[in-house]
């Protein structure tokens, strides 16, 4: 009979102001970086005609993928009826919206013509998976918004289950769509593969849950509300499972590619002699972001602290993973004349050079700030967070 009381965060406390201030400053700096890049043009970034998507896209894709994963907790609670997760459903929905908004903000602000955003929303090429994504993303906002509403307004209770299932399906489709942005690129050897879709789903589960765990722990520590340690370790074990799934699909991705003769070169590039990309792949993505956290999370004496640490590692590893997929995949030269040695004034036949520039990185970090701001404002003005997550 115990009621979960949801309560707004108290605004204007010192901690709240500090966090708010910090987020605003970061967002403002990102804004300045955008103005600079847009004014100068993209030549001031590290992006070129060879590596056309750079650091902003790494951030954006990471955030978008994490967004769909952040909805996990709500789905587990409502679609799969796991009660311990139900009180966190609202935060899960809010965080999903926030991360997606942060990611999209980065994506949009990196466009060559951000002033034509309205064009993007009024002109659709339905053959383009990208255009579908525009619809999937807007739909995600609408559906998760409605889902949140059904969680928060008792009069909408009747629609709760329906909204939950729709949101769950939608976000699977959404991640599939995001993965397919790459999967359908037959031009690029590193991408063109159907395994991209499930890989992205596994990634989303892991990154999203890691982000969620960090936000929950931060919010509860910051507002002085109690959390049961069992809840944290329980989420931690789930995170370990998702890490394993992610690693599994990474293995499938590379093993199938190795099997195809024409992919040998690109696989060798990523796995063996790609320099920074190889290092990021084995060192950060696989070891630091996959194996180590799994070891921590499945260990018998996982604590709040170690779970937090593992979640941070998963985030870092995930970031490296997106970086390797995105930038590594583009840096590897296009193969116009298979089997031939080529050279030109247009970087044919050479590994594309890409070095992130400061404004790009600032813009990307700004995406996290936007997500943070939305979460903070949402949890301050709406009843998102349970008063207590203590076990009773």
């Amino acid at each position, binding site marked *: 009979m115990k009621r979960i009381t949801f309560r707004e965060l108290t605004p204007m406390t010192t901690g709240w102001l500090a966090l708010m201030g910090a987020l605003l400053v970061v967002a403002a700096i990102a804004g300045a970086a955008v103005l600079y890049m847009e004014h100068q043009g993209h030549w001031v970034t590290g992006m070129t*005609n060879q590596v056309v998507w750079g650091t902003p896209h790494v951030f954006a894709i990471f955030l978008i993928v994490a967004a769909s994963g952040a909805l996990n907790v709500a789905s587990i609670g409502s679609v799969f009826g796991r009660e311990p997760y139900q009180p966190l459903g609202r935060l899960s929905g809010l965080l999903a919206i926030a991360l997606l908004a942060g990611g999209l903000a980065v994506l949009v602000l990196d466009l*060559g013509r951000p002033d034509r955003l309205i064009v993007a929303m009024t002109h659709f090429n339905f053959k383009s998976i990208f255009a579908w994504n525009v619809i999937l993303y807007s739909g995600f906002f609408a559906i998760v918004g409605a889902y949140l509403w059904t969680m928060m307004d008792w009069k909408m209770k009747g629609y709760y289950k329906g909204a939950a299932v729709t949101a769950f399906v939608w976000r699977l489709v959404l991640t599939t769509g995001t993965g397919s942005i790459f999967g359908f690129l037959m031009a690029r050897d590193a991408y063109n593969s159907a395994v991209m879709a499930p890989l992205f789903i596994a990634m989303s589960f892991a990154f999203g849950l890691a982000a969620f765990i960090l936000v929950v722990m931060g919010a509860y520590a910051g507002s002085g509300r109690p959390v049961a340690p069992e809840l944290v370790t329980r989420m931690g074990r789930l995170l370990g499972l998702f890490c394993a799934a992610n690693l599994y699909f990474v293995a499938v991705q590379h093993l199938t590619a190795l099997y195809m003769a024409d992919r040998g070169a690109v696989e060798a590039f990523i796995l063996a002699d790609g320099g920074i990309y190889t290092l990021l792949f084995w060192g950060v993505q696989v070891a630091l972001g996959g194996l180590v956290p799994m070891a921590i999370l499945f260990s018998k004496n996982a604590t709040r602290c170690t779970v937090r640490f593992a979640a941070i590692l998963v985030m870092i590893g995930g970031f490296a993973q997106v970086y390797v997929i995105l930038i590594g995949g583009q840096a590897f030269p296009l193969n116009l004349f*298979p*089997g031939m040695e080529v050279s030109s004034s247009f970087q044919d036949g050479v590994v594309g050079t890409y070095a992130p520039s400061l404004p790009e990185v600032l813009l990307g970090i700004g995406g996290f700030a936007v997500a943070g701001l939305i979460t903070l404002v949402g949890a301050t003005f709406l009843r998102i967070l349970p008063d207590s997550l203590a076990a009773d």
Partner: protein
Amino acid sequence: MTETTRRDLLKGAAGAVVLAPGLTLIAAKAQARAPGSAASAANRFGLLIDTGKCDSGCTACVDACKTEMGLTGHDRPATDVQYIRKVNVKDPATGAAHSVPVMCQHCAKPPCVDVCPTGASMKRADGIVLVDRHICIGCRYCMMACPYKARSFAHEDQTNQREANPRGKGCVEACTLCAHRIDAGAKPACVEACAATGKAAILFGDLADPNSELSRRVAAEASTRIRADLGTGPAVRYQGI
């Protein structure tokens, strides 16, 4: 435009198509379309490039393109715009080397068009693939998708544009097959420039017209398309590689 004139012009266009078979002898010289008529699916413009005639030291076509389209560089090769480039191809097995001009291949099934979210990348009825820069948002997905690396992004503000090729910061652009010249009945600038060097390595013509020189040569002589395996159906053919 009033209704009557438009209809008249369309009639004119239809007439031109009907007339086409009768004009075999001069078909290699593309006809200027009547003003007001639309590009027609009865045409499929393309190029045939004979790498044997092309010389690795020559950049006349590249230069002509720059002039025609008003492309100014900033000495930043990684970000400067190139509609056409010379690719030096060497067979490591045999040591055979070619110098190949590569531009947008005006694919029959262009991946750039498929992926473009707004429909800015598009294929005209006559097969010319263009970027409608009025609705291009600069997302660069088309550049990701093009297997030929044919597209460039305008990385900075542009000045001194040519009337015929409006271009500006933040949009993606590529070879237009000199659509403005074709529409006016002329050949692409690179084709003319190559002819002017005396090498005449590039042949322009209408692949849909079986009697065009282009069609006849393609039918008679061996030619290849770059990455034909991808099934994009380029309208640019090469001989000698």
